């Protein structure tokens, strides 16, 4: 078997053996949506403030972003820094395969996990709460992929600047709450005051929220929002490459 495929397969298997990661990445975003939709009746009523939309409509993209925050920023950095700390990357570098294969597999795995979890959110939103599927599907996909890329890049940067697994978990949590806020988990971005919306729009998750929202309602995501995500992805990737230590 091709070594990269073998590494990806092994890492996928290991991922399925982590009940915590499985729950938080794969299930908790959908659960968030279901709990809000089921227990807060007002969320299912159309609101004039939101241009006739329901709060639950806004929470679908929020839950989608929640999935990628969980995968990229919460789940991945401790795994990667643990691999470094426990000498797993080092052991690989004594074989014909470079340890980068392990990092690539982790990025692919958590990216895929985020996308699967996001799809689950969309499907459950559609079935349980009659939330329309994204009208501009290509636009939505593009926004989602860029959002996943920026989430993974942020997670990689967290791992790169953290010397130990403990620090990675701590730094991850410090990044976690601002990303949760800017993704609109507490207040959906579209329900925030204008000024705050503009500021939040400069963050990767805030921009992602706006891009997903536009595509969901049929428009092409704004170039500004896509640009903000691309810029964050590039900056975080640069930081990761610059500061990542193999041991």
């Amino acid at each position, binding site marked *: *078997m091709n*070594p990269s495929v073998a*590494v990806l397969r092994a890492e996928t298997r290991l991922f399925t*053996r982590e009940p915590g990661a499985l729950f938080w990445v794969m299930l908790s975003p959908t659960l968030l949506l279901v709990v809000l939709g089921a227990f807060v009746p007002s969320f299912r009523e159309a609101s004039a403030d939101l241009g006739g939309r329901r709060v639950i409509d806004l929470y679908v993209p929020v839950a989608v972003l929640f999935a990628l925050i969980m995968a990229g920023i919460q789940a991945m950095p401790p795994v990667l820094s643990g691999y470094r700390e426990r000498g*797993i990357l080092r052991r*690989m570098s004594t*074989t*014909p395969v470079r340890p980068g294969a392990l990092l690539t597999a982790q990025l692919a795995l958590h990216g895929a996990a985020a996308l699967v979890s996001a799809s689950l959110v969309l499907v459950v939103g559609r079935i349980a709460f009659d939330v329309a599927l994204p009208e501009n599907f290509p636009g939505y996909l593009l926004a989602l992929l860029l959002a996943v890329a920026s989430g993974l890049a942020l997670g990689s940067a967290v791992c790169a600047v953290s010397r130990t697994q403990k620090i990675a978990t701590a730094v991850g949590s410090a990044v976690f709450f601002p990303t949760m806020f800017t993704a609109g988990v507490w207040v959906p971005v579209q329900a925030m005051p204008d000024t705050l919306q503009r500021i939040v729009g400069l963050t990767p998750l805030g921009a992602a929220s706006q891009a997903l929202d536009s595509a969901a309602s049929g428009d092409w995501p704004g170039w500004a929002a896509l640009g903000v995500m691309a810029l964050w992805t590039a900056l975080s990737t640069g930081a990761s490459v610059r500061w990542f230590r193999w041991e």
Partner: protein
Amino acid sequence: MTAIEVRGLHKAYGGRKVVDGVSFEVGEGEVFGILGPNGAGKTTTVECVEGLRTPDEGRVRVCGYDPATQRAEVTRVLGVQLQQSELQAKLTVREALDLYASFHERPADRQALAERLGLVPHLRTRFGKLSGGQQQRLFIALALLGDPRVVVLDELTTGLDPRARREVWSLVESLRDTGVTVLLVTHFMEEAQRLCDRIAVLDQGRIAALDTPEGLIGRASAAKEISFAANTPIDPAALRSLPGAVSVRTAEGRTVVGGTDETVTAFVSLLAREGVTAGQLRVVDATLDDAYLDLTGTDPR
């Protein structure tokens, strides 16, 4: 043929010299030990051989390849068991073997390797649930998966109980029988004495001695140790002036004289001359321990 060549190796971290001009050659099929106290530069030296570190100065070759620049070639001929390096806790033994086998173009027979290393009963066990000895055996298996010509084993038996240690030793012996060259890093004398054809004693980044285990023991300043409890005190000065005597010390009523065969003969004559009865007289050969302490301990720091 030379399996490993290290010539004039220098490596410093932040201005502190860790390896300071180390040279040695390991012949094909040889088990070569690197012995030394913590911080002597053992691990750094082998890391340069493994290609994990780039030497500041000096020449390193493994089967003729430069680990710093010819990574692909070196990883094909070299198997490495690292000090303090784990695997993913939830990876099973079988999965680890399959995964690492996929890294090599022509991997060794996994089943045979698992049998040889006694891993067959543990194939479904996760790494995190293995005992220390089982983990080490798995690491050796991983190091051998590429069918290497040279294997580096770093602190192989540190943290193992005596029984597991002996198991691992017999594995290394069987490795030698298959003609694989072994570079063994250790700080256990018994291990070095039992397994190694030749030993380099490293101290403060330099090679303090390089010889066979027997040769090293012969170099101990006190090759023989005479220990006794005298019924009437013997003048320590007389003991010290015995031919070949290098040390005299008294503890708990016993006197210990370090020296050579010649010292022993002279000591017996001294006893007869003085009419002293030496109770509980023992004459013992020096061990590798003694040689090691002489080589690494007497240096005034």
